[in-house]
């Protein structure tokens, strides 16, 4: 089971790395914020896996904090930093 936990944690870290591309690419500020939100959820899952793998219960508290605070940055973005006029046109060639 140890191996599985760590493999999955590694897999999620790779996942997170792939999500980084969206932060860099955008195109809109909302996209970047969204990807950061993904990081929070993924980090929670990773911490829970690591907690089970290492038997260190305190890591669940770290995951709890992530889950609680994930919203704060996003709310700060929506309420403060999001410009009223988004200059970027959201056209993705994909």
């Amino acid at each position, binding site marked *: 089971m140890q191996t*599985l936990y760590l493999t999955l944690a590694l897999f999620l870290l790779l996942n997170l790395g792939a999500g980084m591309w969206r932060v860099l690419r955008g195109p809109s500020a909302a996209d970047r914020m969204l990807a950061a939100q993904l990081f929070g959820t993924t980090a929670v*899952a990773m911490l829970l896996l690591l907690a089970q793998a290492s038997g260190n219960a305190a890591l669940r508290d770290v995951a709890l904090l992530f889950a609680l605070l*994930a919203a704060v940055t996003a709310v700060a973005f929506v309420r403060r930093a999001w410009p009223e006029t988004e200059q970027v046109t959201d056209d993705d060639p994909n």
Partner: protein
Amino acid sequence: MTPTDYLAATLLVAGALFFLAGTVGLLRFPDVYTRLHALTKADNVGLGLMVTGLALQAESWAVVGKLLLIWWLVLLAGASVSYLIASGALRRGIRPWRR
């Protein structure tokens, strides 16, 4: 490995696959609304499956409770934030994608 272990392992792997689906959606979907849809749904289900798998292995009910609380919090934050982002994007005139 007991049957419970196998079940837990299956749930964990399934959860990880949902995370993968969420990331693929984030990278490949055409606009902010579809990406929101991919991320919030897939990741929250993925985390739910992982939490269930880990809860099967948990050493006490307190741990199960904490795991469920964490999942509930992520659901709450994810749902609220995706609503806020989507309505904000609409208000700013980002048009939803049409084929």
